[in-house]
């Protein structure tokens, strides 16, 4: 059985890198943090990088000829190289630093809607179709609803199968010559499902549609290679620092140079310009064209340290570790009476994010009682309400794993669920 596989990570050693894991909670309880899909914890190396930046190198970037400015700029731009390396981007200029994944997704939606692109492929209008899926995070639904309203384009979506996967029966009808952009999640933050983005992207490429991938739950957990994805038709990919051991306040948009060059600017200001006159302005080349205003400098520096940390362990190893945990968790939860997993029941094409319901007990109550045992899970619709509607449930309880998660913590979760049932039984 899959969960008999051994994890390639030395988790005990890794846990020592994360100061918060030593935190004692109310009632002197130990923290069992199973909410990493919400936000990850930060290793000492990342915390220290931010501190050192403020204590020794703090300055604005790209604007200063002084020593601090040069140091800050070098650290900021070094992270661009590191992130390009992490996702195998062909060029560092294709890495745009933003505030989070939501901004990245909104950037693409809004620039397509602005009507300012010269090339009509990058302008949404009436008759055009936008395709998403029913398992998107709100951040990949609401922007498209807003731009559909603004432009008169039509929003369409893939439905879900009963076992938590995309229903691709209508692939060729849903993605057609009217489709201008397909935007889909790589790994679902509620179901854990890993989607066949290559297959969908290939169809989109055949009809000339752009493809945006929401990789907020993918880049932290598995090797992602955008050069390979681009060969299948992926044009743009969004992710967020805080879910990958980096600080809050920083996100990334990768895009093929050709695509990023063709999109008009999003936010205006600061260093995104070439030259400004009152009568009109011209814009800097990528990546700066999309980095208006003072960027999240210290957060980007922290992201660089996070990338070093993750690549030091190896994304492949992290992924394998999480596969082991996922198999273990699915197996153990299958043994708990009244627990139903929402999402793929087998550890195949799915990540370490496991949503479930407990018969007759609302997730809020499940989460609250687990919290009394120090077990931190997320409860609710996880910013993916249409998934709950699809499965006829108001909400789920979600346990999500990361490189510091242990099987003992999954055992604690299962014991906790037993307590929950006793309490409300």
């Amino acid at each position, binding site marked *: 059985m899959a969960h008999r596989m051994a994890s390639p990570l030395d988790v005990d050693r890794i846990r020592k890198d994360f100061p918060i894991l030593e935190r004692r909670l109310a009632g002197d309880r130990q923290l069992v943090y199973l909410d990493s899909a919400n936000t990850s914890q930060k290793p000492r190396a990342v915390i220290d990088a931010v501190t050192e930046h403020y204590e020794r190198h703090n300055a604005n970037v790209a604007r200063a000829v002084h020593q601090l400015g040069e140091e800050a700029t070098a650290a900021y731009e070094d992270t661009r190289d590191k992130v390009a390396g992490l996702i195998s981007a062909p060029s560092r200029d294709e890495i745009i630093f933003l505030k989070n994944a939501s901004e990245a997704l909104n950037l693409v939606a809004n620039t397509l809607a602005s009507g300012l692109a010269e090339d009509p492929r990058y302008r949404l209008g009436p008759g055009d179709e936008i395709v998403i899926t029913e398992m998107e995070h709100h951040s990949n639904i609401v922007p498209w609803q807003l731009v559909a309203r603004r432009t008169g384009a039509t929003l369409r979506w893939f439905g879900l199968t009963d076992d938590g996967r995309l229903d691709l029966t209508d692939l060729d009808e849903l993605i057609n010559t009217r489709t201008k952009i397909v935007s889909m999640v790589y790994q679902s933050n509620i179901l854990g499902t890993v989607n066949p983005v290559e297959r969908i992207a290939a169809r989109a490429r055949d009809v000339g549609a752009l493809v945006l991938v929401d990789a907020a739950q993918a880049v932290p957990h598995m090797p992602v290679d955008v050069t390979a994805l681009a060969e299948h038709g992926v044009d743009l990919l969004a992710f967020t620092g805080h879910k990958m051991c980096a600080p809050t306040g920083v996100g990334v948009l990768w895009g093929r140079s050709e695509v990023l060059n063709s999109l008009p600017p999003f936010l205006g200001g600061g260093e995104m310009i070439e030259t400004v006159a009152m009568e009109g302005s011209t814009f800097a080349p990528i990546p700066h064209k999309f980095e208006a205003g003072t960027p999240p400098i210290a957060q980007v520096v922290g992201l660089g340290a996070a990338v070093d940390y993750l690549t030091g362990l190896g994304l492949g190893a992290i992924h394998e570790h999480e596969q082991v945990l996922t198999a273990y968790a699915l197996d153990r939860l299958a043994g708990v009476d009244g627990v139903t997993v929402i999402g793929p029941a087998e550890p195949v094409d799915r990540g370490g994010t496991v949503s479930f319901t407990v018969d007759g007990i*609302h*997730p*809020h*109550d499940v989460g*609250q*009682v687990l919290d*009394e045992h120090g077990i931190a899970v997320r*409860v*609710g*619709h996880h910013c993916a*309400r249409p998934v*709950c509607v699809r499965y006829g449930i*108001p*909400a789920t309880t979600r346990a999500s794993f990361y490189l510091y998660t242990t099987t003992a913590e999954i055992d604690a979760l299962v014991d906790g669920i037993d*307590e929950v049932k006793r*309490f*409300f039984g």
Partner: protein
Amino acid sequence: MSESLYQEIILDHYKNPRGRGLREPFDAEAHHVNPTCGDEITVRVRLDGDTLADVSYDGQGCSISQAAASVLHELLTGHTLTDSAVAGTAFTEMMQGKGKVEGDEDILGDGIAFTGVARYPARVKCALLSWMALKDAVHRASTEKVG
């Protein structure tokens, strides 16, 4: 365990809800949703002059939101709109008191069991959900009657 949050009274209302179910006739209803957790509640009111002749409700959600609706029904059915407004204000104040405001049992009845919930910001909304829906429904019923 969980004593502070899950008082016996709350668990009892949750497990044995009083007056649950939407009833006819009614003068107005309001449907409220807690976006964070998907809790939903529909509250219906029937007025008889200044009196809440019936407060009926249905919904899905956590023990706190469902128990609060049950308490609401029990406390306010047959009482005047003035009593209802006074109780609503008192309950809201208690819930926003971060666990430091004790409720008045004469006004809030079983509602005072929710003091402890006020220490959990994420759950305050659950407790208030049906009260907000009631306020809305009463407002609609009153304006429609006038209009």
